[in-house]
């Protein structure tokens, strides 16, 4: 019964946010809004992993950024050259000629590659938990970063520039930022709903069980590693969706998107907004992006302020803004049964 109330609340809040989103570009600069939406989706995807599976991925930027590169490449050049062979024996290339794609296909390509990367990284990283998991994801993300620096198609330090925005499905012209904004809004809503559905499903319940008590879940016969891997891949794919969309918005994919600082930023957004809450990451993303924009003139003070927010949030505001609001309303509703939602991160098994 409580869950239904929570769900109807969620629905109402979501509807309100969508309504806000539909009207916002009339008042606020659409490019800024699109940036917020992309990062909000990124943060929600990250939150799926930390809030509901209890795994802190410190390298999520690799999915975000790599998908951006893939989408950018598909939209600008199209032709894909895949390497195979060993470094000592010489690389050979399979060339798959593709014409430059329209945005929705390019984004789809980005998502698929991000999911594939998620499978590979997840298979390695899932073997560890807790802090080890975080460090492993960080290290693997750094490896992806160095690969991106080297790979020809990423353009290295220049990045992929002047990514064209062809008409979507060949029909809808999205050269105008205003029009494209609604497309991005639709993408965000789709991604958000996928996450929501994943959380509130039998699959999501198993994830919750794993987070609460992994040993018991194993003893009940659940293939825990597989569940974690699937959740990881979903999270990676949606982070990829965010990244690919961002590449289309800014018509640029660059190394910044795969740095560990970017990974740290999405952690910050989720922490500030509220880990494990439904709307927290989006709120957090909005706040951090706004702050970055507002303080853009101050250079490294942004770094310092982000550090301060991190420290303050970890020490005092662990539940994040939305988490605190939820706890506040719960206290007011005087329902004694539900304990304050402390974030249950996965307990390291060693």
């Amino acid at each position, binding site marked *: 019964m409580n869950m239904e109330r929570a769900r109807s609340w969620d629905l109402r809040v979501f509807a309100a946010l969508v309504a806000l989103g539909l009207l916002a570009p009339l008042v606020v600069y659409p490019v800024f809004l699109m940036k917020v939406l992309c990062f909000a989706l990124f943060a929600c995807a990250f939150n799926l992993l930390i809030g509901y599976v209890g795994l*802190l991925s*410190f390298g999520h930027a690799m999915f975000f950024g790599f998908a951006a590169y893939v989408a950018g490449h598909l939209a600008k050049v199209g032709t894909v050259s895949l390497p195979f062979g060993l*470094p*000592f024996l010489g690389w050979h290339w399979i060339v798959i000629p593709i014409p430059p794609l329209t945005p929705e296909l390019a984004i789809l390509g980005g998502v698929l590659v991000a999911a594939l990367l998620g499978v590979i990284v997840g298979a*390695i*990283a899932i*073997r*560890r938990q*807790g*802090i*080890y998991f*975080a*460090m*492993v994801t*960080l*290290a*693997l993300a*750094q*490896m992806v970063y*160095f*690969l991106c620096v*080297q790979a020809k198609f990423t353009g290295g330090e220049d990045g992929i520039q002047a990514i064209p925005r062809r008409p979507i499905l060949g029909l809808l012209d999205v050269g105008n930022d205003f029009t494209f904004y609604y497309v991005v809004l639709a993408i965000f809503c789709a991604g958000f709903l996928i996450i929501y559905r994943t959380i509130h499903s039998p699959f999501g319940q198993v994830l919750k069980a794993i987070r609460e008590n992994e040993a018991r879940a194993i003893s009940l016969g659940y293939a825990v590693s597989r569940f974690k891997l699937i959740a990881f891949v979903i999270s990676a794919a949606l982070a990829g969706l965010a990244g690919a969309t961002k590449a289309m918005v800014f018509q640029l994919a660059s190394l910044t998107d795969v740095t*560990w600082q970017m990974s*740290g930023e999405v*952690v910050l957004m989720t*922490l500030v907004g509220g880990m494990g809450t439904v709307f927290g990451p989006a709120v957090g993303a909005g706040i951090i992006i706004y702050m970055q924009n507002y303080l853009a003139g101050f*250079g*490294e*003070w*942004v*770094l*310092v*302020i*982000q*550090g*301060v*927010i*991190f*420290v303050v*949030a*970890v*020490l005092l505001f*662990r539940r994040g803004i939305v988490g605190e609001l939820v706890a506040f309303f719960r206290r007011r509703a005087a329902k004694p049964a539900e304990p304050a939602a402390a*974030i249950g*991160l996965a*307990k*390291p*098994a*060693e």
Partner: protein
Amino acid sequence: MFELIGVPPQALFGQLLLGLINGAFYALLSLGLAVIFGLMNVINFTHGAQYMMGAFCAWMLLTYFGIPYWGALVLAPIIVGLFGVLIERLFISRLYHLDHLYGLLLTFGLALIVEGLFRREYGISGLPYSNPIPGGTNLGFMFLPWYRAWVVVFSLTVCLATWFVIEKTQLGAYLRAATERPDLVQAFGINVPRMITLTYGFGVGLAALAGVLAAPIYSVNPVMGANLIIVVFAVVVIGGMGSIMGSIITGFGLGVIEGLTKVFYPEASNTVIFIIMAVVLMLRPQGLFGTPK
């Protein structure tokens, strides 16, 4: 014989020696991380920033107080170690009752603050710090600067001394016991929180020491620790977090492997350590010297 691989023996030995020197830095830094984690279960993301602070401290001591390198070698770790003690008392100690990941996030935030403040003050171009032992000797297969030889010898000594203290002395025994059962150890009348604080300070001091060692050869700039720390994380994961000796051996070993990669396939020298980490995780998730779960 070596010509078959296309590399003359001089280049090979030269690179091996250089790899050993890099390994010294990896070992010293991962030692600090391992000490802090092994005894406190906290991942000190600030380690890179503290390494940088050590280098800056040495520079400041020289520039403002005229204290040369040898004095800085002693003073800088103490100063930065005190800073470490301060942040442990103020911030980190509040998180012990929570999941360890919060410690990671906290130290990450602190790292951002420290790096941001130093960048604000000193820019990124890097500050000069002169070599205290200039010159070197021609070994035939390479020219070995005295300073680099000193780095290897000194870090090896420090690493072994630390290992000895932790594994073989009574103080070390108390520290190790305090990690496993702080309540029992406290019951014996040992001031556990103070020990933990001092441990953190010691680990930070090790990072700062590495920074002072690095100052004459690498550029003293605010981002010197940022990318290095992630490599050190990989080293620690490969070595296995539980073992002090493990991180020392892994640090030196990976430095050597990196050096070899620079000879045979230089473009991969940045990623080889991560590749090894991935392989080790697939085959032996607890790390080379870690204890299985």
